[in-house]
């Protein structure tokens, strides 16, 4: 069955070059991408996870606000009964934040220098291969 991957960004972050490229790369790899683009609120994004019945979610951040945004997002996912949908994050993720992110249950952390094939693999396995 085709994997349904929801991609988007939160808040006012406009650095969408990476996630747009990723969307195309994933599509070319046969993954069904639901691309929400920039300027989503946490509530709107969680609604989309439910409505779109996503198998995996990818959020991208250039903004240093990512730790707080991810905390809010993970909490809202849990409160809305979709806390088990795997979440991957990418962008300017600082190594110092890997541990707190893992503690929040994020298994896919694709910071600077990540390879596209590793991300494709992770999405194909619905967040399985790195766990």
């Amino acid at each position, binding site marked *: 069955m085709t994997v349904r991957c929801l991609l988007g960004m939160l*808040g*006012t*972050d*406009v*650095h*969408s*070059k990476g996630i*747009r*490229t990723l969307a*195309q*790369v994933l599509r070319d790899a046969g993954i069904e991408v639901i691309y929400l*683009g*920039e*300027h989503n*609120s*946490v*509530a*709107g994004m969680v609604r989309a996870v439910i409505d779109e019945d996503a198998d995996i979610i990818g959020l991208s951040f250039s*903004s*240093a*606000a990512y730790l*707080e*945004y991810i905390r*809010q997002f993970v909490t809202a996912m849990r409160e809305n009964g979709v806390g088990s949908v795997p979440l991957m994050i990418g962008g*300017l993720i*600082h*190594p*110092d934040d890997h541990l707190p992110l893992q503690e929040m249950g994020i298994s896919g952390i694709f*910071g*600077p*220098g990540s*390879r*596209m*094939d590793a991300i494709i693999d992770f999405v194909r396995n619905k967040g399985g291969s790195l766990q």
Partner: protein
Amino acid sequence: MANNTDGIDPALLGLLQNEVKMSRTKSWSGIETAAYYGPDKRDVDYDTKLGNPGEYPYTRGAYPEMYRSRMWTLRNIVGYGAPEDTREGLLKTIAAGGNGINVVGDPPTTQGIDPDHPAIGPEVGLEGCSLPTMRDMERLLAGVDLAKIDTAWHWSTTAYALVAAVHSHRGQSLNTLQGSNMPDMLQETLSGWGQKVVPAAFGHRNAVDQIEFCTANSPKWALGIPQAYDLRERGLSPAGEIAVGMAIVIKTMEDLVVRGVSIDRAAAGIAWVSISDVDFFEEVAKFRALRRFWARTMKERFGATDTRALRLRIACHTSGRSLVYKQPLNNLTRTAIQSLAALCGGVQSLEACTYDEPVCVPTHEARDLAIRQQQILANEIGAARVADPLGGSWYIESLTDTVEAEAVAMLEKIEKIGVIEAVTNGYIEQIMDDYNLTVQRELDLNERIVVGVNQFVPENDPVPTRFRFDPTNTRIHLQRFSELKQQRDRTSWEAALRHLHDTARGGGNCTQASIDALIADVTVGELWGTLRVANGYAYDPYGAVEAPIRYNA
């Protein structure tokens, strides 16, 4: 007698003293040099395609003596936290030798979203300075006489109106206001703001309003159009920069001419906001092709005759996207060469990215090194000594022609669609996405090598240091913001909002009404939301905030 430094905070006097000067026209060994070099005998080809520096079509430079007559302005962007935090950063930059106040607003401010918006809480002040009200702008600019000190603002929406509000509120005439901002809204739509935040036609109208108003009322205020920097970073080649940038410029000029603005006046106030990326020779060629393309367009298409309209001034910032996260000190090599390309290409102002750009908001040390780098280029390398030092090189001349020819072809396609439509229907975004995908594929296949990305990746690279600042001021700033909303004079605030809405609905120029609204303590979110409503869009792009008043139908 009034002293020229009256009204300026003593801590800011360095701004007037830190000017970069040409320290030497001889080579390092002592050989005397001329301002420029050219062929022994000029022919028609040289005259039409190149000309000497300062001569039409300005391929070889905007001014005859280039940096001998005026050095480039050494810029360094600052912006984080509350106005007080950014002010502290500016003072440190001035102490290190910076000679311009260059402020970047945080994304909420620049996108016209208030800091108390429920969807953006964690972002306030993180990636730029939070400046949601005129009061905040006054805090940042205390002791800065805006008639004497040039301030540069890296955003489109409300920068001019906020600075103009401070200046007017101090009782000074807008006619004396110095500085610059970048009123290019089509670029914003293309670089990630999208139709959701800035529908193309609405944004473009706002940009044309600002340019029309500034041309008439603040002739010393420079306008950075197009903001091609972000376009390139989003995903365009050098030829693409010229094509998309010129498409925006041409549409803007056409609209201004319809409003009765003379092309000579409008074009004279404009500087092209450009980029210098890692390919040294290609960037040098780009700057040369760009000036020629601009001059010919202004002359042949618009009938401009004033030299100031025909010779393009270029403001340049080195590419942030080209910098690499791993082993970030390598980025000093990249920015030095990018800056050298910009100077060989004849730019009028230059900002070098700090080496830690891919890691975080610049640390104070990284900003210091960025300034030192330009001082080394100015004084030791001889980068400014001779205008267009690479002119006449077969390679550079051929690249210049090729970049220009590619740009001509791309522009033709965009104009066939119409630039507003090409922004709205995703045509230009597709060009950018295709460019990025090609780059990514080449990186994945090692057909394009970037040190520290797909080859020569250091192992055990130490974790990079992050810029951190105390969030106390941001908390106080947020508290002040909510107090201002409680305490402001509701009658004048509401009247100003209504006037702004009605002006926009009636198709008038909204710039004066925006300035007046900010003086009446309207916030940037209320200002931008009101303009959105007047143009037929929802008040809040996130759908989370209600309009503060019921507008007239």
